[in-house]
């Protein structure tokens, strides 16, 4: 009896909490069902392609539904007792089927492929050149179930004593290209920032990379998630992303560098989990 009451109470509290969340989530607003705010300079490319694909998909799916429902209505046995005897092998039939196939392929697929290809090669894998422009480099180490971040510090060299290291707390400036190199300590993780529409796997034994630039005026707090199943507490593998305007970031960085100089213990081997920045244009394997 007690159990039933406890269950009922817990059900009730969860229901009221649920009602609360419904009100808070604003179910009638479209933005509830859209991805979180895009804070990266190139994220709109992905949103654009998504919408582009969606329009075509809706068009074709409506066609399918029209056929399915329309024919069902028009040619139901009661209404249309004598079927049209055809194998669909008349020239006109073959032509129509082929035309539909080609139309889908040429209008949708090839367009999407072309756009995606251009974006991928021209933007997402077009790695910023550190020699030509200002780039912020960050090393990311994934492990069960936390993210560690490492900035090169004053000397610009990774895995040295003056590196700024943080756990689950990534701070980035707006208006500057940021390049990440990732590795994992144990299992495969995936570095996912929904607000920039980007993710990349962190894999033990090899370095993967990602870059983006944050838009001006996007300063604020965001979240980083692990998107690849990585064990029991996969769901808790979250990190905070704090976006600062450029000047504020520089100020913070100077402070953090000072602090790092004082606090980093050179004898602590665990501090030096970083790796030399790999300039290889391709994914490089870490071999011992």
């Amino acid at each position, binding site marked *: 009896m007690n159990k039933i009451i406890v269950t009922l109470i817990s059900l009730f509290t969860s229901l009221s909490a649920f009602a609360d969340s419904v009100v808070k989530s604003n179910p009638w607003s479209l933005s509830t069902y859209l991805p979180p705010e895009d804070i990266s300079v190139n994220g709109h490319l992905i949103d654009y392609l998504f919408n582009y694909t969606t329009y075509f998909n809706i068009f074709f799916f409506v066609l399918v539904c029209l056929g399915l429902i329309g024919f069902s209505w028009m040619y139901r046995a009661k209404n249309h007792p004598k*079927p049209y005897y055809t194998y669909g092998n008349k020239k006109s039939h073959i032509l129509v089927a082929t035309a539909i196939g080609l139309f889908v392929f040429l209008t949708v697929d090839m367009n999407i492929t072309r756009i*995606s290809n251009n974006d991928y090669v021209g933007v997402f894998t077009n790695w910023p050149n550190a020699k030509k422009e200002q780039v912020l480099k960050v090393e990311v180490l994934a492990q069960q179930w936390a993210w560690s971040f490492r900035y090169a510090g004053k000397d610009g060299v990774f895995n040295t004593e003056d590196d700024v290291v943080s756990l689950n707390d990534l701070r980035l400036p707006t208006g500057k290209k940021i390049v990440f190199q990732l590795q994992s300590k144990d299992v495969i993780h995936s570095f996912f920032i*929904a607000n920039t529409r980007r*993710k990349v796997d962190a894999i033990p034994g090899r370095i993967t990379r990602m870059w983006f630039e944050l838009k001006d005026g996007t300063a604020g707090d965001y979240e980083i998630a692990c998107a690849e*199943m990585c064990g029991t507490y996969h769901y808790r593998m979250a990190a905070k992303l704090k976006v600062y305007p450029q000047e504020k970031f520089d100020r913070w960085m100077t402070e953090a560098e000072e602090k790092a100089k004082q606090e980093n213990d050179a004898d602590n081997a665990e501090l030096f989990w970083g790796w030399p920045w790999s300039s290889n244009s391709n994914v490089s394997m870490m071999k011992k």
Partner: protein
Amino acid sequence: MAFYEQHIHPKPTTFLSKYIFSFDHKMIARQFIWYGILGLGLGGMMAMLIRWTLSNPGVPFPVLGNLFFPMSGGVVPPDSYAMLFTMHGTIMIFYAITPLLIGAFGNFCIPLMIGARDMAFPAMNMLSFWLAVLSAIILVASLFVPLGAAASGWTAYPTLSTLIGSPGVGQTLWAIAIFVLGISSTMGAINYITTVITLRAPGMGYFDMPLTVWGLWLTAILNAIFLPVLGAGGLLLVFDRVFGTQFFLAGAAATNGTGDPVLFQHVFWIFGHPEVYILILPAWGMVSDILSFFSRKPAFGAKATALAMTSITILSTLVYGHHMYTTQMSPLLTQTFMTLTMTISIPSAIFFANWLGTLWRGSIRFTSPMVFSMGVVFVFGLGGLTGLYLGTVTTDLYLHDTYFVVGHFHYTMAASVLLGSFAAIYFWFPKMFGKMLCEKLALTHFWITFLGLNGVFMGMMMVGYGGMHRRIYNPFIYEYLEKLIPLNALITTAALLMGIGQIPFLINLVSTLFFKKEMAPDNPWEVGTLEWTIPTPAPHYNFKNIPVVKCGPHEFGNPNLTTGRDFQYQTEELVKG
């Protein structure tokens, strides 16, 4: 063409030889049906637990929670949650859909539809079923070992699936169970391929085979080729776990490791992408047939449909890389896989054109198999089109490993295949068991299931688009996902609806099998393929005389027919005007 005629074996008499270790393909098909329905039930229960956790994290599962999770007061704990979704995926793919469509209907339809007395190798057929049972026993046993069952997802990516990520023996048992099941399915595949090549009735060319047989045959070919690839990956994984080899351990802490975890992903998806088509091809074939059967006109472009299925079979082996975009392959590989993936839409579009062409100017009878088949066209349309987002690399960067992927593959692999299986069950049930299922209950079953599954999977795609990633126990520790709580609750409600929708099916099944007295006529659907030329239920030797095939499987509505029927049997000379 038939290369030889099988002898009529004496009827089995003992209980053991008739019901347990039966060589008869129809009995093995029935065994597989029960096996598959059990699997569906188990996997469905797990889905319920998963859904409950996602919409009500931290709340005890009603009624049964205390039974399953006494330690946590009925709340699904996070480690059990990981086991649940791993097992849900594994069971649904390998122990529910595979036995239902390929095991049961492959076994039942192939010999009957091509006019053979049995499979080419009946003993191997029986062995295939019992190996599948052995595999299921291993898998279920893995739920009860210390540290619990496998918990690294059905994809079992190393290094999570090696000793680094899952030290328990459950993961090893999982790999062994899949390996044994692979042997079982390969045996089945060998049987199917050989049977179709050598035992077609005289007069039956490849294009005179019903499209169902085409689908099953292509599936068998894919199975025979690609299951061993999974077998190899599974073996290496087992070696890594048991004998301490170093295939997938690179760079991970506490190993001296060379080797590379990404290799497993390559091997897994070389198998895994064809697997998607392994599951859907039989359903495509059946749907193509059933649409024609109940539109009472020949299948539109049947030859093109068969060829499109074949070309998809071939293409499916070349596109697996689109599952691995986020592992950052070289850009050239990425582009190649993207372009190849896109070409799949040509044969798919031809399918849809042909399916709609079949309905066009037909005389449609809305029987339960027909309604389920039209459901397949609908959900596969959605599933196929949403694949475009995931085949394109840039949108995949955002959508990969989110619920959008989950929604997409449930539409293609779960929704279409499930509806296809139900269509098949309703359609062949009279020939299998000798009685007709109740049509009214079947239609109720359809509408509830259809509404439920669209709610679930559409909802999943929406939360995925909102940024909710996969396989998380409690999404709402992320602030940006909080707005999706009501939607998640809605999905759970829809899932519950879908679960409830199976009750009419079970009632129908039980009441028809055990309480209905009225036997079905020999040809209740008025269809001309070979299995309907024999008595209902099919006698143990199938065909007293091997039939001679004289026309295609979809001869409906021929205006020159004078037999008083609107169809003709495949054994009849094609009536020409």
